[in-house]
């Protein structure tokens, strides 16, 4: 096990300065527009000290805490994917020369990000996007360049939201993998400290410079208690047993129609999801018609265009789009990437304007008689796909 050490708030500031000194752009939690978001930070002054968030299906609001905790919130709408897989990025440009044109590729950005405050579920989400962009047949060179340079200073969650279910997805709340350093905030009447441990060689190297104090037996025990306590606070639960088979067998379940009565097809769930990776490309030309650019932009399976082919749109109904999203996230993701696409962060529940809760919807499908409406019952004739 890695050696545990302790720093105080000043120590945390020191850590930020060391990271900046090493050429990192430090990104951490900060309050903006009544939400906690991730943006560039320069000291703990930028952190959401004393703020927490209340979450429920379709509800998110900031609330003052009775203490000055820096990591006393749960999760905001942002995830780290907006830095590693940006919402829009130029892929290349083309310049016309007479009847010819030349393509000029956009070089991958070699920026160094230090992500401060990543939670365990979020590290799992990054590991999932790694599989999508770096471990398939082809490699996304832009993602890879940013990812290889990125440093993660994770935080063990000191509380859970009512929308959290990382315990059932086995993605938290304790930070176990994918971090360079991990903090646990220890805060009571007498002290405001952070237990700090390295998770990689880079982390060890930085920790040396931080000049932390060795942690006592009590500190380590306290950290374990905090994490154990967080695990008991999960507001949601997902029964993942045979979930792939369950969904594949129920592609024509009546519950999809029920969901579609509420779903606005707004794509919020896909935008806030830390693992959703879909993108589209957009070709733009300037007014002279001599210069063209190709941009990659986040896209969502909830849009009409997403499935359009010559002759029409494959997924016309809201029902089919919601089904595509959930079946992909929880079932086909396992076939494609050998992991669930869900990390139990609950963002899709919180940021759904009508509060659709995927844990509940899976439960409803599970509760009904299996195999009545599924692909294995061979009801091909009823489902003409013209």
């Amino acid at each position, binding site marked *: 096990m890695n050696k545990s050490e302790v720093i105080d708030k000043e120590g945390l500031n020191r850590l930020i300065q060391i990271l900046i000194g090493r050429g990192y752009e430090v990104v951490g939690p900060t309050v903006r527009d009544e939400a906690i978001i991730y943006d560039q930070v320069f000291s703990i002054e930028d952190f959401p000290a004393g703020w927490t968030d209340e979450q429920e299906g379709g509800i998110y609001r900031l609330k003052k805490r009775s203490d000055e905790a820096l990591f006393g919130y749960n999760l905001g709408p942002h995830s780290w994917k907006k830095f590693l897989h940006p919402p829009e990025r130029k*892929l*290349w440009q*083309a310049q*016309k020369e007479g*009847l*010819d*044109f*030349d*393509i*000029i*590729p956009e070089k991958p950005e070699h920026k160094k990000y230090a992500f401060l405050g990543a939670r365990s579920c979020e590290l799992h989400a990054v590991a999932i996007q790694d599989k*999508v*962009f770096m471990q*398939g*047949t*082809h*490699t*996304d*060179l832009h993602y890879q360049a940013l990812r290889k340079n990125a440093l993660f200073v994770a935080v063990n969650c000191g509380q859970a939201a009512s929308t959290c279910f990382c315990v059932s997805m086995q993605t938290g709340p304790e930070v176990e993998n994918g971090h360079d350093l991990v903090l646990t905030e220890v805060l009571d009447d007498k002290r405001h400290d952070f237990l700090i441990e390295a998770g990689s060689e880079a982390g060890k190297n930085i920790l040396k410079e931080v000049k932390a104090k060795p942690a006592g037996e009590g500190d380590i025990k306290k950290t374990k208690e905090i994490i154990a306590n967080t695990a008991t606070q999960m507001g949601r639960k997902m029964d993942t047993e045979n979930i792939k088979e369950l969904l*594949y067998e129920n*592609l*024509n379940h009546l519950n999809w129609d029920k969901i579609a009565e509420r779903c606005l097809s707004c794509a919020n769930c896909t935008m806030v999801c830390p693992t959703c*990776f*879909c*993108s*589209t*490309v957009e*070709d733009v*030309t300037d007014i002279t*018609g001599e210069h*063209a650019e*190709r941009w*990659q932009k986040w*896209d969502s*399976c909830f849009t009409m*265009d*997403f*499935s*359009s*082919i*010559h*002759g029409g749109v*494959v*997924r*016309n*109904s809201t*029902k*089919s789009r919601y089904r*595509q999203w959930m*079946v*992909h996230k929880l079932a*086909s993701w396992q*076939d*494609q990437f050998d992991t669930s696409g869900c990390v139990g962060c609950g963002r899709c529940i919180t940021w759904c304007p009508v509060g659709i809760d995927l844990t509940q919807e899976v439960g409803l499908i599970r509760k009904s008689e299996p195999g009545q409406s599924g*692909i*294995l019952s061979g009801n*091909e004739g009823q*489902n*003409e*796909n013209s």
Partner: protein
Amino acid sequence: MENFSPTDPMIPRSYRVKRKIRESHDTFTLDLQPDNLEEKTNFAPGQFNMLYTFGVGEVPISISGPMKESGHILHTIRGVGNVTQALNNLKIGQKVGLRGPFGNAWPIEEAKGKDVIIMAGGIGLAPLRPAVYSLFSQRQQYGDIALLYGSRKQEDLLFHKEFETWRGKYGIQVKVTVDTGDRSWKGNVGVVTTLVPRVSFDPSNCIAMICGPEVMMRFSALELTHAGLTEDKIFITMERNMKCAVGFCGHCQFGPAFICKDGPVFRYDQIKPFISTREF
């Protein structure tokens, strides 16, 4: 200033139109050659490329020939969308961007020692033509070969000038039908599935490859199973929206697969549950 990156799968490479062949009233074939003459134009039958025209956009197009390593590559295109019409407007010598080849291949190896049925609807014959050429190149390795081809109208039929050679030189059964025929049409009228009973093959030792509209492929597969083929011997090729062709963009997800990298060719029994589900 040539500055193409060979490793970034999102960057098109530079190709030029060497020849343009009119195939029908709305369909044409572009014969493309790489600017970089060192570049290999190898592909497997069934694979596709992403073709880009300046300022308009990019589309996935199946490779329609040739088969030998030749330094050039054919794409048969129906000019019905913005990009395909722009491709149609290209003149000899003009440039296109090309990414690929992507995707998997028709089961040419698996079909060795067996009878082969090729079923195509409309432009669906284009991605199958390299498979046909490939069978011809080792004709003695295969048993009876049958091509069953249907289109809406006579004027939509592709490559029909080649059919005589295919029949005569390579001894394959070619049956053609149209949905609606005018007075000049002397051949079969009806959907392509009606041709199945009219060719000879051994259903217990046969591979079928089908390409056409989704509904045509489903009914063709059904007809072939009625004729005695098992679903694991039937292969179809799928189409979905595609932006990246390399598994990043998510558009072509189809159940457990990405059509761009796990397909476009699928064994029928493996995707039947999904293709049979409406709006999947």
